[in-house]
C-alpha cells in the first residue's frame, strides 16, 4: 500500500474525482462507481499486457487492431451460425497468434518493436476489415450477458479484470519469468551476459500482450454486442496511457501491475465518465484526457528527478 501513495497517478485520480464530484451529484453514486470499474475493465486488461511489453523497453502499437481483428473473426463465425462461445474462443486465439508473430519478427529478424507493431497496426486492422467486409455485425444477446451477468454480485468484466491483474502481478513479482522480464528491460545486453534467454523472454512478453488485447477486446465487444469497423481504434493509446499512468517507464525495467495498471485504467475511464456526466463537449474529451495523462507523467518524472533516479 506504500506503493499506492507514492504513485502520482493516485493523487491525479483523487484530484480528477474531486472535480467531478463537485460538478455532478451523480458521480459519487455507487452505481456510477461500479460503472466506471466495468468500463475500465477492457482497457485495463489490454494495459496489463502492455505493461509486460513496456517492462522490456518495448511497445505494442497494434493492440487496438488485434481487438478489432478478433472481434471481426468472432462476428463472422457467429453470424455464420457458430455458437457464441465458439466465436469467443476464436477471438481469444487471434491475440496470442498476433503476439507470437510480433515476438518472432522482433527477436528473429532483429526489428524494433515500434516499427513491427506500427506496421501490424495497419496490417491487422486491414485483415479485420477484409474478413468483415467492413460491415457492422450484431451479436446475439448471449454475448451481452458476458458484460451484464453478475457472479457473487460482481459483474463478469470486473471479475476478469481482477483475475488478470492478480495473475499478472503474481507473474511479475513471483515467477522466474517475471524477474527475467525486469532484467531484460533494465539492460538486454547485460541480461544476455548473465545467461538469460533474452529472445525467449521477449517472444513470451508479446504473446501475453496479444492475449490480453484479445481478452480486453472480448470484454469491450460484449459491452457493445456489435462489431463496427471502428471497433478498437485508438485503444492502443488508452492502453499505453493507462500503463504509463500506472508507473511503467518507456525505457523498461520499471513499472507495476498492482496498483499501477488498476489506477491508470480507472483514472482514464474516470475522466471519460465524468466528462460524460457533466455533458462536456465530446470534442473536448481527447484534449482533457491527454492533459491528465501529461500531468501524471510530469509528476512521476519530477518525483524521480527529486529522488535522483533516471527520468
Amino acid at each position: 500500500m506504500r506503493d499506492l501513495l507514492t504513485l502520482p497517478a493516485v493523487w491525479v485520480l483523487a484530484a480528477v474525482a474531486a472535480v467531478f464530484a463537485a460538478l455532478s451529484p451523480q458521480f459519487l453514486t455507487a452505481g456510477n462507481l461500479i460503472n466506471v470499474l466495468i468500463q475500465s475493465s477492457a482497457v485495463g486488461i489490454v494495459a496489463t499486457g502492455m505493461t509486460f511489453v513496456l517492462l522490456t523497453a518495448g511497445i505494442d502499437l497494434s493492440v487496438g487492431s488485434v481487438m478489432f481483428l478478433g472481434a471481426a473473426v468472432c462476428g463472422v463465425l457467429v453470424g455464420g451460425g457458430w455458437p457464441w462461445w465458439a466465436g469467443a474462443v476464436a477471438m481469444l486465439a487471434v491475440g496470442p497468434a498476433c503476439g507470437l508473430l510480433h515476438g518472432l519478427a522482433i527477436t528473429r529478424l532483429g526489428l524494433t518493436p515500434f516499427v513491427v507493431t506500427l506496421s501490424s497496426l495497419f496490417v491487422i486492422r486491414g485483415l479485420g476489415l477484409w474478413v468483415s467486409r467492413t460491415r457492422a455485425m450484431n451479436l446475439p444477446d448471449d454475448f451481452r450477458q458476458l458484460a451484464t451477468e453478475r457472479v457473487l454480485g460482481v459483474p463478469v468484466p470486473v471479475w476478469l479484470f481482477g483475475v488478470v491483474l492478480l495473475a499478472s502481478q503474481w507473474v511479475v513479482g513471483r515467477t522466474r519469468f517475471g524477474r527475467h522480464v525486469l532484467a531484460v528491460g533494465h539492460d538486454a545486453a547485460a541480461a544476455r551476459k548473465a545467461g538469460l534467454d533474452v529472445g525467449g523472454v521477449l517472444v513470451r512478453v508479446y504473446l501475453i500482450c496479444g492475449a490480453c488485447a484479445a481478452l480486453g477486446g472480448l470484454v469491450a465487444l460484449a459491452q457493445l454486442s456489435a462489431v463496427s469497423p471502428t471497433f478498437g481504434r485508438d485503444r492502443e493509446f488508452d492502453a499505453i496511457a493507462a500503463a504509463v499512468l500506472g508507473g511503467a517507464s518507456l525505457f523498461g525495467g520499471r513499472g507495476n501491475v498492482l496498483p499501477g495498471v488498476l489506477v491508470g485504467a480507472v483514472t482514464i475511464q474516470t475522466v471519460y465518465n465524468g466528462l460524460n456526466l457533466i455533458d462536456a463537449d465530446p470534442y473536448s474529451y481527447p484534449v482533457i484526457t491527454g492533459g491528465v495523462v501529461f500531468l501524471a507523467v510530469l509528476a512521476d518524472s519530477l518525483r524521480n528527478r527529486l529522488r535522483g533516479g533516471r527520468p
Partner: protein
Amino acid sequence: MTPRVELRDVGKQFAGVWVLRGVTLTVPPGAVLGLVGENGAGKSTLMNVLAGVHRPDAGTIRVDGADYAPRSPAEAAAAGIALVHQELNLFPNLSVGENLFLDRLPTKGAVPLRRVDRPRLRADAEEALAVVGLAVDPGRPVSGLSPGERQLVEVAKGLAAGARVLILDEPTTSLTRPEADRLFALVRQVRAAGKSVVYISHNLPDVLGLCDAVAVLRDGALVAHGPAGEFTEDRLITLMVGRQLDQVYPQRATGPTAEPLLELDRLTRPGAAPVSLTVHRGEVVGVAGLMGAGRTELARAVFGLDPVTAGDVRLGGELLAALTPAARIRKGLAFLTEDRRGDGLLMDAALTDEVSLAALPRHGPWLRPGRLRQAVAAAAIRVNLSQGRLDERTARTLSGGNQQKAVLAKWLLAGPRVLILDEPTRGVDVGARAEIYRTINELVKAGLGVLLISSEVEELLGMRDRILVMAGGAVRAEFRRPEFDREAILRAALAGRAA
C-alpha cells in the same frame, strides 16, 4: 598436472584488424594469474573470448583438459568460467538474491502456479554471500549497495555458479582501499579452495603482491609470461611499453609561439581536482593517462558539455564559462570525440551533409548548396579525403581512417582556433594515421592550438610539444621536449592508481 585453462594460438579480429594474435597461455589450478598491458593491448578482449562473449577467430582453448568453445556467456558459465566485468553486470532494479541466481532462480509448485521459491532463494543467497563475507540482506535491491558491495556480489555470483575460473577485470577501480583489501583476501581464499583466478589490473603493486604468475600483453600479443617473482614494477612497465617508435610521425618545421590560445585556470569538475593548463598558438599539447584518468571528462568540461563547479576557461583571452557548446564552436573551439560512431558522425547521411554540419551556423539561415559543396570539397582536400563524389557516399561505407578524416574536415569548416582531439587514431590504420598526423601538423603551422588526448604514448611522443599526464582526474606530471621518457610517462600515469 593438467592446466585449468590452456589457450593455444588464440586470435581475434574485429573488422579485419587482429586485436589478439597467437596468445598461448596456461593457468594452473589454484593459481592467480595477473594480466597486464596498456589500454587496448587486448586484455579485455582475451577475457571476453574466454568468457564466451566473443568467439575466437583462431586457436583453441581447453579447460581441465577438455575442449572448450563456448558460444555464449551462459555456456561459459556452465563450463565453470565466471567473468566479473569492469562495469558490473548487475541489475539494480532486482534484489541481491535475484541477481545472484538470476539464470536459475529456484522455483516450487506445480506447473501453472510455478513460482520463485523465496525461502530457498534467501537461504541460498545467504550462503553465497557468507562465502564472500558480505553481510547484506538478500532481499535488498542492488541499487542500494556501494560499489565495493556490488563487486563482492558479482564474485559471490560467480562462485555460487560453481566457477572453477574467476576472471576479475579491473576490480579495484571504484573500490576504497579497505574494500580492495577485502577483495584480495577473498581472492586468496578462492585460490586456497583450488580455483583459478585471472586478475586484470593497471595497479602493478597489487598485481605483483597478489598473483602467482604474470602475463604481459602488448598490441594483442603475449610478450612475457612467468612467475610473479621474476618481475618488478619497472620491468613490467618496460614490457608493456617496449615498442619501436614508428616512422609515421612526420617532422614539424614550426614550433609553438608564446601566445596563449586556450587557458584553463583551476577548472574544477564535480568531485575532481582543479586543472590548469595552457595551449599556445601553434602548439600540440598531449594528454596521457589511463582509461578513467579523467581526460575525456576534462575535454567535455572545456567544451561545455559537462558541469564545472569552479575555475575559468579562456579562448584567446575571452571567457567561455557561460557559453553553450554551440556558442563555443562559434568562438573557435572544436572537439573530436573518441566515439566517432556514437557521437561524432551521422553514419547514414551523405558526406556533404555530414561534413557541413558544424559549419551550418556560419552559413546563415538559407543554405546555398553550391557554396556549401565548394566549402566541403575544400575541407576534404585539406584533410586528404578523396572519396569520389562526397554527396553520394555515406560515412558508414568509409574505413575508420577516412571516417576520422571526415570528422576532421567537418570541424575545419567551422573555422576553429583550438582543436581538442580525443583518441583521433583509435581503430585507424597506419596509412591514414600518417595523413591525420600530417593534417594536424599543417593546422598547427597555420596557427591553431591542439590538445591531443591519447592512450598511446608513442603517438603523444611523436606529435607533442609538451605532454601532460593525468591520473585520478588531476594533472600529475608535465614533460617538456628534452625530457620525454615513455617509461616515466607510464609510471606517472600508473602512480595515480596506487594512491
